[in-house]
């Protein structure tokens, strides 16, 4: 059934609340307001005060609280209205969610999910457009997934909630309203499994999150206008990472262009490019190319932010450079 990305996540949350009495949704405006982006719509009415909780504007406090509660077996699903706001809770996320299991020699674990949108493109300015998946993935102890479709969002969200380690789910406000096929019956998608969103033979476009759609659009045009068959690989999960799938596809096409809404310096695509050249250097017929957000803070101007994010045009240009 055609379902929006928003609704798919909403269903995942509802199903997991029903499945496990320890799952609780906590965040700003998630309950009575139905969520700033309506992702939690109807959950408070349906499940009540205990399972869906409105929090004050204290991200460090309530995320830290969720981490502490998770040590005692609660499975909090924390909403960040924007992932950008994680920066006021950064120490709690990196050190308490990420390091406590290790520092205790494995005596505890933190089955917490921290979710919310992390994207540019809606002209909300530099402070609201951060995409910290590269920061999170840099941190052993944490996991991070970036679903690109409604189907993936639902399956990965359910898996993230069942995972016994801290998982960061990075969504996208530009995708909430988009629809994809989502089956009636229950399903989950394991973390760490990439997905070939389009088969191809000439070049591999590797992306995550909304950049996957940019890559797919570029692939269409490449085939129609240039007769180039691009394979589009959706990482889905950044850590754990499906390195095998990456290497398998590039070993087949011998060319790779990475599409990544991260800023370039040490963005996720830097890690993928470094890995490809290190592990299958001899398979490469051309250097791995990267298409990232233009390297400046997110600009407000609607006319310009559009071109600051990766565009199909820029992806196509990179492909033509190496094909």
């Amino acid at each position, binding site marked *: 059934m055609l379902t929006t990305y928003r609704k798919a996540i909403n269903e995942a949350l509802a199903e997991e609340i029903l499945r496990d009495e320890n799952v609780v949704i906590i965040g*700003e*405006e998630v309950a*009575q*307001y*139905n969520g*700033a982006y*309506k992702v939690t719509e109807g959950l408070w009415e349906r499940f009540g005060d205990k399972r869906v909780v*409105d929090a*004050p*504007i*204290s991200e*460090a*406090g309530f995320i830290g609280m969720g981490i502490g509660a998770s040590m005692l077996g609660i499975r909090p699903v924390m909403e960040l209205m924007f992932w*950008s*706001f994680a*920066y*006021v809770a950064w120490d709690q996320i990196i050190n308490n969610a990420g390091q406590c299991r290790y520092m205790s020699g494995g005596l505890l674990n933190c089955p917490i999910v921290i979710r919310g949108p992390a994207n540019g493109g*809606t*002209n*909300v*300015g530099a*402070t*609201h457009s951060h995409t910290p998946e590269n920061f999170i993935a840099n941190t052993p102890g944490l996991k991070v997934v970036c679903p690109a479709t409604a189907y993936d969002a639902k399956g990965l969200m359910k898996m993230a909630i069942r995972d016994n380690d801290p998982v960061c789910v990075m969504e996208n406000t530009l995708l909430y309203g988009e629809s994809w096929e989502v089956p009636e019956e229950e399903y989950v998608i394991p973390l760490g499994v990439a997905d070939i969103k389009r088969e191809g033979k000439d070049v591999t476009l590797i992306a995550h999150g909304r950049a996957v759609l940019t890559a797919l659009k570029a692939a269409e045009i490449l085939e129609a206008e240039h007769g180039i068959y691009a394979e589009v690989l959706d990482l889905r999960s950044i850590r754990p990472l499906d390195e095998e799938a990456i290497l398998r596809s590039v070993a087949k096409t011998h060319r790779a262009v990475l599409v990544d809404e991260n*800023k*370039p*310096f040490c963005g996720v695509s830097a890690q993928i490019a470094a890995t490809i050249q290190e592990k299958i250097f001899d398979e490469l017929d051309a250097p791995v190319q*990267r*298409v*990232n*957000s*233009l*390297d*400046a*803070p997110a*600009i*407000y*101007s*609607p*006319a*310009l*932010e559009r*071109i*600051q994010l990766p565009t199909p045009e*820029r992806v196509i240009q990179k492909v033509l450079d190496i094909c």
Partner: protein
Amino acid sequence: MTATQEKPVVEAADFAKAAINAKLTKKEKIRFLREMFRIRRFEQTALKYYQAGGSMGGFLHLYIGQEAVAVGTVSLMGKNDHVITAYRDHGHALAVGMGMNECMAELFGKATGCSKGKGGSMHFFAPDKNYWGGHGIVAGQTPLGLGLAYALKYKGLKGCCMCFLGDGAVNQGVYHESLNLAALWKLPVIYIIENNQYSMGTSLERSSAVKNSLAERAEGYGIAWDIANGEDLYEVRAKTWNAIRRAHDESLPTVLEVDTYRYYGHSVADANAKKYRSADEIERYKTDHDPLRLWQDLLIAEGVLTAEAADQLDAEVKEEAAAAGQFAIDSEQPLPQSIFEDVYWEVDNKTDAGQTGRHFFGE
């Protein structure tokens, strides 16, 4: 409970007699009315364009209903007094004297905007007018305001920083860190909590545990605090002036909580604007507590101006706002290369430092 229920009921008249108000000229009183009209008409015009679609993106947080707070406090600013606030910043921006043109153009993301179209609604700046923005992260501006006060004291200037925040922002830890530092180091900062009773859809009761008021938390740091009725320009000025004197004369901080109300939703995108508040509540504020209407009636009663003169003034302001809309429409979009400008001072100024090594990556 909201602070309102706690504070002693006082006659506006008392505050009219306060020295700082008693000495006001007719001209000044009329200017305050004009400033409040400017804020309201500017935002109503912006709202019209926002709803029409196509010209603006992102958020638009309207200040309408709270005008007396920005106009009253800013009216007391001297040469070395500074202002910084959050994302609901149009009122303060216009009050410090920014032009409607550059503000409207900023909303349109145009090159002629006060921030060259880079900041948008939440990020108006005018350092030349001692106005330091315009900040999107809740309470993120509270230590910045402290820093402006620190700089004034460091330089030996008699001044202060008025740092505005919302009733929901008081629950960000950095605000408390700032209070302790302000008291410990005797910094001339005034935290003005614009208590409009809601943080997005959450009422104060649901977000803050208090004894009697939000300002009272200052007590734990030995900081002076007060509560003001934000619908009364005289009261806002009188109580703000006490804080400014404390800052100027004793280099001490103050927390001033001002009760006010926003008529529109949290932002224009707020679909529930009328769900978490009753229509009656909103109506009651608009009819009985509107700072513009109250001030206008007061001035007419004082014989400062006639109803006709007030309408005339409003008409002028409406024209100014309409012209600003046209200015924004006619303005150029910023150029693509400007994306890489205003990131680094050294690069923008083509200094050696700005030209040594690679500053930007990717394309």
